[in-house]
């Protein structure tokens, strides 16, 4: 099956990032129609009816989330989560770089639908180039009266601010994003209250991912039924999937949900190099439990991946071929989450820290197979016990790796214990962290 381009339809037009280029492809038609002709509650109903599920990771119905916000006149907010930080995910980056107006149109439509007059795009600090593009596009949209105190003279107000984060993975967690946006240390908040009830500055807040919001203009233009004609019943629509790792043609591919994963990895991304085979693959970013070669034929949907014990997450496939050491992959994954843990809750802070120390012991030849039991049990002790999902994001893939590649771990433990065996050859960026802190 080839790509099915909706969000990416004119992505190769170099003029698409400008307002003229976007309008040449019927851009802002949906906004004009929504603001001039449509009732906000009909809009929300259409989004809910379309079955559009959040593209940021949790896969929650966008329309339903919007309907949780209280009605009536009050300070409400829309926040676009553009803090794309999950290893393996880079789809939002391309969407914003090449088609920023599609997102701005989506943000404005979402604001209208929930009755918010203020909207923010929280973009990760490292995407400075993308943020510059967004800034220019937002200025153009204000100029053209698609944003501002009286959007397309409809009487509705939408103010949009592009806010650059300071570069922390945790700020992609919606409540940590809100804290960071308010100028505080980006730590997750206790839920409930959920942001839809009490979010930014205590006001009801809709938070959605870049790709989710980019879908809205298309649903307004073509209707919910059109949207449902793509994908499966539980996973309607198309999805931009980032494929990376051991594949010949890494990149973003927009496909109809439900496509066999094998087609995505092999037909579109070219599969691993000749003579190599897929050993393990993350279907939804580094936080998704790894799958094996035997699971390559799973349809790429929220429900099928969940049933297989993994998740679609942000829609980012990372492929590891048979040259990759799974224990090393586990250590890299664990280190990432250990580094990014905010430290607020115990299981994540201590669990990621302890896991890294144990995995490092394997590389140093100081582990025994008994440690594998402890590693596995520690992952179980983290899952479901944390304040937010960051802890789970390490525990799920690491747990899955230990469970599915136990033989390889045992062999690695054995190999590293042999006299003369050095540490794993880790790339410089992955040199051991100082897990003992030498602060004051």
């Amino acid at each position, binding site marked *: 099956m080839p790509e099915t381009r909706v969000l990416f339809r004119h992505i190769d037009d170099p003029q698409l990032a400008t307002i003229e280029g976007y309008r040449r492809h019927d851009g802002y038609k949906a906004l004009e129609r929504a603001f001039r002709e449509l009732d906000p509650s009909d809009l929300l109903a259409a989004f809910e009816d379309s079955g559009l599920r959040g593209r940021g990771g949790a896969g929650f119905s966008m329309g339903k989330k919007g309907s949780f916000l209280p009605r009536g006149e009050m300070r409400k907010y829309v926040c676009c989560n553009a803090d794309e930080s999950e290893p393996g995910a880079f789809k939002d980056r391309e969407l914003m770089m090449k088609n920023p107006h599609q997102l701005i149109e989506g943000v404005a439509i979402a604001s209208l639908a929930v009755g918010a007059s203020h909207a923010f795009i929280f973009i990760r600090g490292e995407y400075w180039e993308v943020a510059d593009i967004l800034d220019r596009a937002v200025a153009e949209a204000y100029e053209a009266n698609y944003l501002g105190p009286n959007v397309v003279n409809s009487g509705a107000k939408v103010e949009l601010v592009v806010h650059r984060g300071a570069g*922390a993975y945790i700020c992609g967690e919606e409540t940590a994003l809100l804290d960071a946006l308010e100028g505080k*240390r980006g730590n997750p908040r*206790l839920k409930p209250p959920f942001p839809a009830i009490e979010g930014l500055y205590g006001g009801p807040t809709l938070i959605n991912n870049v790709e989710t919001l980019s879908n809205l203009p298309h649903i307004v233009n073509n209707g919910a039924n059109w949207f449902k004609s793509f994908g499966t019943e539980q996973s309607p629509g198309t999805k931009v999937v980032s494929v990376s790792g051991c594949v010949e043609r890494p990149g973003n591919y927009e496909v109809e949900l439900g496509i066999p994963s094998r087609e995505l990895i092999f037909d579109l991304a070219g599969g691993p190099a000749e003579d190599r085979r897929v050993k393990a693959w993350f279907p939804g970013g580094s936080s998704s439990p790894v799958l094996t070669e035997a699971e390559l034929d799973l349809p790429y949907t929220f429900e099928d991946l969940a049933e297989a014990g993994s998740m679609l997450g942000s829609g980012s496939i990372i492929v590891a071929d048979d040259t990759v050491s799974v224990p090393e992959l586990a250590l890299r994954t664990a280190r990432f989450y*250990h*580094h*990014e*843990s*905010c*430290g*607020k*809750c*115990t*299981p994540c*802070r*201590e*669990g*990621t*820290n*302890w896991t890294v*120390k*144990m995995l490092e*012991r394997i590389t140093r030849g100081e582990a025994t197979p008994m440690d594998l039991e*402890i590693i596995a049990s520690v992952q179980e*002790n*983290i899952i*479901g*016990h*944390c*304040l937010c999902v960051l802890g789970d994001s390490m525990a799920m893939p690491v747990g899955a790796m230990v469970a599915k590649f136990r033989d390889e771990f045992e062999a690695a433990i054995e190999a590293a214990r042999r006299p003369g065996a050095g540490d794993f050859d880790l790339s410089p960026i992955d040199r051991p962290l100082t*897990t*003992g*802190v*030498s*602060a*004051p």
Partner: protein
Amino acid sequence: MNERPQVTLVVDGLEVQATEGEMLVDAAKGGDVEIPVFCYEPKLGGPVGACRMCLVEIEGIPKLQTACSTPIRDGMVVYTGTDRVVEAQNAVVEFLLVNHPLDCPVCDKGGECPLQDIALGWGPGRSRVTDPKRHFRKPAPLSPLVRIDRERCILCYRCVRFSQEVAEDEQLQLLERGASSYVGTFDERPYIAPFHGNIIELCPVGALTAEAYRFRARPWDIEDAGSICTLCPSQCNVKFTVRDERVQRVLARDNHEVDNGWLCDKGRFGFQMISSEERITTPRLNGNRADWPTTVATAAQRLGSGERRIAAIVGGQVSNEEAYLVQRIVRGALGSPHVTSADELPAGPVARLSAPELGAAISEIESVESVLLIGADPLNSMPILDLRLRKAVRHSGLRLVVASERPTALDGGAEETARYAPGDSADFLTALAAELGPDPAPESPHAADAERLAGELRPGKTLVIWGERLGRGPRGETALGSLLEIVGALDCSAAGGGVFSVPDGSNARGAREVGCLPGSGPGFASVEDGRNLEAIKQGLTDGELDGVILLHADPVRDLPDGPGWARALNRARTVLSISCFEDASTKAADVVFPAEAYAEKEGTVTHPDGRLQRLRPSVPHPDDVRPIWQALAELAAALGHETEIDSAPEALDAIGAEVPFYAGLTPEEIGGTGVRWQDRPEASAWATPDHGSPEAATAASDPGTEPAEGLRLGTYRDLWAGEVTDRNVALRFLAPEQRVELAPADAERLGLGDGDEVEVRSNGTGVRARVQLRERLRPGAAYLIEGTATDNANVFSRVRSVEIEKR
């Protein structure tokens, strides 16, 4: 207050009744089920759910939930001991111990450590951790009073939340992230803030320890004795930790009606003075050690010959019993009417302001719509009140309105603030009274400010908190008259709003209610008018008075015109000083009774909101110190006035017999948490006494209102200026040197900069000070601290303006 419904839930198979919306962890206690917690502490505000210790299983919810943040609902079914829950609890304890050193045998918290208890009760019992733990320099000083052992820290956030959300000093932060997180301050600066000692008690592990208590005792060596801290009018409920008959530390004893479970650093660390080597521990006659019988007999003989020419001044630290007995000796045994308090106020208006129908409890701050705080900076004179007001602004939407001479620590949270110049408080009150009153307000320079403030204050919804200094000085009576008008216009009553005052002296209210004001006897009874402080000083100086009794009073240091008081005491034929320490006034005393420290006293005190509380002796009297009520009763007897008081409770009985609204009070009724006399049926015996109408007195003009050259002088109490700081080694670093606060505009005009050393002068008198610029200060005034050990601002008597020169 709208009552929330009672609901029933099932915890581990037991039906539990609780209030809807209560957190599960609290509701479960009703079923005798303890759910372990580290980060949960309701005093700190809403739950944060960080430690994850309190995970429980709730029917119908797939994931385990934190009991600290789950409000209960009717019919909820909760399990706290299923395999899943136990596994989660074991896991969290194990995680906490990944980095926590197992150094319990040498840890100060050992034996009273929540982590120890929870590890024993809910932990896995064995450790699987073989990896190295994180290391920090230990134990590093967080401040001169508190040490931090970051290796022991379990990052529960309690101390940080206290700093950020309760004290709002915002100095403590979590630095770094993840497993590298640690508690600290910006740039490793010392955490110096008036309430920071509370973090020691909040810490659930041995990470935060008091410098003064480290390695002093083990929990099995100590006993905790409940009493009251009388170092300021907050009268916080405390526990004295006693080992070997010495107070080793002071802990909070939660009383929502008084202190909300917090202590200020003065109360927490000010206990070293109790066992100080500098204490006066024997009676003294003419500077020589003497025994009690001789001393009492001599005192009786010297005072008795003076008869009506003897005066008495009681200080803030007195108990009701002591104050009552002093006034009884002077009025009853010596027939002299000259009894007053260092916190002297005109009896008429203060009695009217003390009426039970006006009196508000301090906790009502959290339920009223607005508070008018006028003429007081709680942080300096009644610190816990500052925290209570902050809490109400933060959590119950209180609208705070502040009017004061100097900027207060609470201005940041206030809806409106107004400043008036030193000496203008009476005019300001008059303007505000006029603004709130029915008649059109007359012209006043304060009219605009008054209008602004009045706009925030709704009748029947406002609590008025007034600083007792408003009633001092020649225009005090006018000021309190206007305050009464304001209270009337705002319809303040105990039913909605109300009134209470912020005194300087800890038990100022008790002292005046038992009769220590000129012309006002026990229960504000009208008695023969006596000399006020100024007239006593004058009388002693010119020989019209023979002598004076000073009970916990040091006029040379604490009252205006210190040098004048020193002259007066030196001229006096006899001075009986009852004091813990040798001070400026004791030096002039021919008879000295050693006073009890507050932890040694038995008796009662009265909170500014009318709550009577019990002082209970927690440590024995050192050396030859005896209860003062006893010494005073003996002195009265030696003067031929038998009081028949042989115990502290009998002294309370005697008070009850004379103060109608204290009638029948017993130590048992007061109990551990105190009782507001306004809440007792005996309060109906209150009859506002007739001490003359305040209006009659308004004619007196202020001799000092002539327009002044230079800057107007204002003086204020600093939390750390005074005897408590001087007598506690640990606190001495906080004692302020004299500084003169100036508005930047004035400083620029005078060519002065921040930190300049200057001499502040008037009429040939001067003090040395260092310039401190304050942005929010009203230009045209200069402020000095009262009660400093040197360069005390009270050398200026009745001075309205000063000149400042660089040294």
